[in-house]
């Protein structure tokens, strides 16, 4: 003859099949409870938090300066390449200028333009050289010393 199972036994059997959970039928009012503050614990937590923040900042600064240095390296190399390019361009232009100043080329161009070499007596030196003391001899124009001194005193 079987016995009547108690409600508690039935509940136990049911609990094996599902997750055991405790339900409080009455609402709990915790408003009267006040958590006690633990200053020591709070201090420790604050120190721990500060340490973690500091460590984080250090890592960030290290990473920032590391990648900034690499970026600066790229920029420096770019500027170096630009400078070297300009220096080379300058040399190439100097070479071109030297080539254009070739006496043979200038002589050829002059003759093509109808110019000819000066004959004897046609060459007059304007820099005051030679033994020519004729007052009618042309001289090179130049600023006299008095005018130059006046310009130095009153630059306006």
């Amino acid at each position, binding site marked *: 003859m079987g016995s009547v199972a108690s409600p508690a036994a039935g509940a136990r059997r049911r*609990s094996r099949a599902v997750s055991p959970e405790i339900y409080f039928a009455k609402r709990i009012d915790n408003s009267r409870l006040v958590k006690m503050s633990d200053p020591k614990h709070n201090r420790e937590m604050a120190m721990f938090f500060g340490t973690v923040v500091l460590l984080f900042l250090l890592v960030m600064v290290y990473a920032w300066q590391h990648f900034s240095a690499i970026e600066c*390296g790229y920029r420096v190399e770019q500027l170096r390449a630009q400078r070297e390019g300009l220096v080379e361009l300058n*040399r190439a232009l100097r*070479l071109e200028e030297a080539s254009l100043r070739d*006496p043979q080329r200038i002589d050829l161009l002059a003759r093509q333009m109808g110019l000819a070499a000066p004959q004897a007596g046609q060459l007059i030196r304007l820099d005051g050289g030679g033994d020519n003391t004729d007052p009618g001899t042309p001289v090179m124009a130049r600023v006299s010393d008095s005018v130059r001194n006046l310009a130095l005193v009153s630059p306006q």
Partner: protein
Amino acid sequence: MTAFTRLRALLTKSPVHFRKALPSDSTRRIYALSGILVLWTGVIGLRLLDLQVLHYGDFALRAQRQQQRTIEVSPRRGIIYDRNGHELAMSVMVNSVFAVPAEIPDQAATAALLGRILNGDSRELLARMKASHAFCWVARKVDADMAARIRALNLKGIYFQKEPKRFYPKRELAAQVVGYVGMDDEGLGGIERQYDEHLRGMPGKMLISMDARRHWFGRVERQPDPGQNVVLTIDQNIQYIAERELQTAMEQTKAIAGTIIVTNPHTGEVLALANRPTFNPNTFNKVPAAFLKNHAVSDVYEPGSTFKMEPWLRRWKKNSHGRRN
């Protein structure tokens, strides 16, 4: 049932259903997930340990080999000036073309294309590509136009490198005096050869760091010592006049060779030294070797009656000195 729970039941007079504590499904799930996370973190940590500690040296060495290159920096060859500062010889950087044969997918086609542009033998170029996997010259010191045409082809495995090339902007002017240089900027004649060790300079070294795209982001370098400049006593205008007159005299007399030397009698400076036949030092390898000769300094020539000046001047000087005493 704990004391607290019993107390609550008494206070609230509410039925509390509870059972003996057993691990719930959610707890098991939490444990399983935590276990997976711990395992995952452990695997990552072990891998980090392996990379950063156990094999650190090996990987650092491999990275260094990939990222760093040592390049020898050629020194800039000195400039040759005339007495008035006009450049008679100077170097500028030009492009040289080289190939990395291992990176070229079709060497035959590439060699044929380049041979057509460079007007060279494509078979010889192909043979050079096959002889080396890492590097071979395609053409050295090409002009800007040719470099632009090759660059426009955008061929895989073909790269450019800057090299200094010697230019003589005055062309044939004082060619035998100034001289000429070979492909590696070594002096082969004239002032270029005589003062080669002064003009050459000392090469430098550069240790560069580059990324995967071959962009440089750092370098440590020892600057090369540039070559010294050489200033001649030659006056380019007097030189030109001497050469022009020599050319006229050669045409009139139908001479095989000729030379004019102009010197300052007070100081002995050579103001002009002209030779015919002459050549363009920019293309010295395309003329006969006889044209490269400086007759003024290499030929033996009897002075003849011109030497009579020497004893007469000596006697005059002696007499004038005696008259003074």
